[in-house]
Structure formats: C-alpha cells, structure tokens
C-alpha cells in the first residue's frame, strides 16, 4: 500500500493567495495541481513536502487562448483541455501530437500542463514540444529586483536546470506558457514508447518556419535522450537558411543524434535511443514541413 507521508494541506483561492501560502509555509511547501506527478512521488517518498498548496480551484489558470499574436496556455490547463483546444491544434499541431501520447485519457483528464513542466521529468513530452516551439514561461512570485510586479518570463530553454529541477524558486509558481505565432510555420511530434501510456523510449518534436523554399527558422525538441534543455540547438543552427529538403533533414537528424546523451535503462540501450533521436527528428521535421506547406500530415 502506497500512501504519502503526513502532510499539511491548504486550498488556494487565487494566485495571490497561493503565493502568500507559499511565502507562509516556506521552501518545504509544494504546489498541488493535478497531482499526477507529485502524488506518485509522495507515495514513493521521493517527494516529501511539508505543506501542499492546492491550486485546483484556480480556474483563472485554466485556459488555452490566442492573445496578442501568441498562444497562451494557463498552467492549470488539463492535458485533455489542451488536446481538445482547436486553437492549439490550428497553430501548433505538435501540441496535439504530443498530448495524444501523454499518459492515457484518464490521466490526461486531471494532470496539468504546468504540473508536467514543473515536475521536470527528463522524459516529459511537453518539455520537448515547448522547447521546439521556443515557448516562454511566465512565473509569478512575491516580486523583487527586476520584476517588482512579481512576474517574470523565462525561455523554455532556460526553464529546466536539471532532472526534476526548474528555475521556479521557492515562493514562485508557473502561471502561463506563451508561444509566439509566426507565419509559415508547421510543427509535429514523434514518439516511440513501449506501450500506451508509458514514458517515451525517445521522442522528438520539430517546428519549422519557411522562408520560401528555405528553412527560415527551426526548433527541435528532444526528450528521454539526455538532450540539454530538451533541445538540439546545433541541428537547428544547421537548418537555419538551409533548403527544406530530405537531405537537410537527414543531416539535422545526424547532428541531433550526435549531440544528445542518452543512457541505457529498462526502456532501451543508449545506442538505440541515439538512433531514435536522429530518426524521430527527421520524421518530425518531415511532418512539420508538410504542415507548414498546408498539406495534410
């Protein structure tokens, strides 16, 4: 029987209230969103917070909307909501690709986008998708030098500081993910897993923005293969200005595979994961290109 250790519990009624509770209870307090990462960790005593600050009542953090040329996703948005969002699918098909293969439909009903990101599992899918899309994370805190209103933004590629670690400090909370919408874009996500609902053996996300027949800009996200910040910046650099062709994608895949650092575990040996990193990068780029051209993919 797996039961979390004794813990105190507070229900937040607003973002401000949640922040004040975090301030009151200090660094051993943890935000409780869907709990589908945190509660299993608490059952295993891998996480043992002293206080849970339950934000499930904060409906103001639950939305997917297009505002100011950006897709904005509230941190408390459930995975199922993101999968159902027509706006997300229209602008960033990669998000629907990824959501379809995150856990299972019941877990997606309650697990949240922000919770997945803040758990910062090194095999997490959305981290790679947001890295590919060059998303921006909005973090709220008590305020201080440089961000007196208590709000700061961090690039998706600065968000993670290591396995299970992010830049979200004690007393702060992730509130929103923003993705700039640019013309000529297409995106896709490719994952290989052992079975439905499992973490990936390896997965890659790609976003490209075309400039005529050339790749104007590209984003490549990788997960479960030891890629720093879930990204493949060298492969992106190679693609920038290159022709949007199979040859370019094949080389980008090779570069992505060379630069990641997978480890062997029960999901597969390192060399297989490295192979996946390259091959899935190519497949994701291929599909992203078709979408950028408005073709079915």
């Amino acid at each position, binding site marked *: 029987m797996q039961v*979390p250790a004794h813990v105190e519990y507070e229900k937040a009624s607003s973002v401000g209230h949640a922040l004040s509770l975090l301030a009151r209870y200090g660094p051993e307090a943890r935000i*409780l969103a869907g709990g589908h990462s945190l509660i299993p960790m608490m*059952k295993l005593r891998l996480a043992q917070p002293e206080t849970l600050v339950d934000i499930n009542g904060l409906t103001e953090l639950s939305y997917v909307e297009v505002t100011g040329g950006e897709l904005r996703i509230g941190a408390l948005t459930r995975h199922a909501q993101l999968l159902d969002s027509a706006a997300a699918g229209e602008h960033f098909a990669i998000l629907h690709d990824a959501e379809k293969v995150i856990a299972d439909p*019941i877990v997606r009903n*309650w697990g949240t986008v922000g919770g997945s990101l803040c758990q910062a599992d090194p095999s997490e899918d959305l981290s790679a998708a947001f890295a590919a899309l060059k998303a921006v994370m909005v973090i709220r805190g008590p305020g201080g030098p440089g961000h007196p209103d208590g709000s700061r933004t961090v690039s998706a590629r600065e968000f993670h500081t290591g396995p299970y670690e992010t830049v979200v400090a004690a007393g702060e909370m992730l509130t929103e993910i923003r993705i700039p919408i640019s013309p000529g874009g297409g995106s896709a996500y490719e994952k290989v897993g052992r079975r439905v609902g499992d973490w990936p053996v390896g997965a890659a996300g790609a976003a490209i923005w075309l400039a005529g027949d050339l790749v104007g800009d590209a984003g490549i996200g990788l997960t479960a293969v030891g890629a720093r910040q879930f990204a493949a910046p060298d492969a992106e650099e190679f693609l920038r200005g290159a022709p949007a062709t199979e040859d370019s994608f094949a080389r980008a895949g090779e570069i992505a595979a060379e630069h990641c650092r997978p480890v062997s575990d029960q999901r597969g040996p390192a060399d297989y994961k490295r192979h996946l990193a390259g091959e899935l990068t190519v497949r994701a780029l291929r599909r992203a290109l078709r979408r950028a051209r408005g073709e079915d993919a």
Partner: protein
Amino acid sequence: MQITVTVNDVAFTREVEPRLLLIHFLRDDLGLTGSHWGCDTSNCGACVVWLDETPVKSCTVLAAMADGRRVFTVEGLERGGRLDPVQEGFARCHGLQCGFCTPGMMLTARWLLDHNPDPSAEQIREALSGQVCRCTGYENIVRSVRWAAGQGVAVRGSPAEAGGSAEAGGSAEAGGSAETDGEAPA
C-alpha cells in the same frame, strides 16, 4: 481536516488526514467498495470514478481535493433498481470475468457514451486505453460498450441534472425498457 464530498448525490462530511487518497476515502470511510483499489500507480484504472464531470484515477487524487466537489462511483450507475445500459451491456455481452476492472471500465464507458453516443470500436478502445483488464477480456468489453451505445442515455439522466431529472428520467426509462428487454447481445 474536515471535507464535504457529494458522492452519488449524497453529501458526506468527514474528518480526514490530508494525505488520504480518494480511493481509500470512498472504500474505507464511506464503505463504497465498488471502486477497486488496484495498482496504486495510476496505471490500471480499476479505481476510476468521476470527479465532478470527469473520470479520474482516484488512487492519485487526495480526498481533500474532492472537498466541495461531486464524486460519481459505480454504486451510482444503477437507479431505482434499473441498471444503467452500460451495466446491462457488460452482463449481456460477458464484459467481465473476474470483475476487478469492471467498475472503472463502466464509469469510463458511461462518460464516453454521454459525450459520444455512438462510438466506434476504435474510439472505445482509445477511451479505455488507460485501463487494464488482467483477464484480457477486451473484445467483450468493447462489445458491451457498443451494446450499451444502442440503448440510449444513462438511467441516472445527465449527470449535470442529477437529482432534478430523476422523475423525468423515470418515465423515459419505462418507455425504453420494453424495447430493450428483447434484444440479444450484439
């Protein structure tokens, strides 16, 4: 801490530890043992119940998180001695063998049919893909849900109208039963 949870339209107020999981609250505090405690790791889906309008894995939800919310369990499927079409489908189409996964399967099936009254076999499989039948009776589970899809709405009526709809639903059910009784499994 004190919580009040409305389970199958009945409000229960109990003193609980914040760490208490919803599945244990239902089974141990309320004696509603229809929801099954399976893998304990949000993999198997035997513990699926609805939290407000949404199926969740109750081994991974704290009872405290259900405070002020509605929970719908397998005990709430049947109304006034009439089985929900999903229950009847599982009985007619042999949708269960040992029965351990059945409560969770039926609650997800009910939710699916409420949102998609005529799902394909593929859509049923997708909806149930987070739930495990260790007897591996998936074919008959899909058949059971397909059978239920042909029988119309839940006997409890729309969950959102629970309570107020009991009488209206009752008359509709009486009309439907004559037609359904004679039907063979799909």
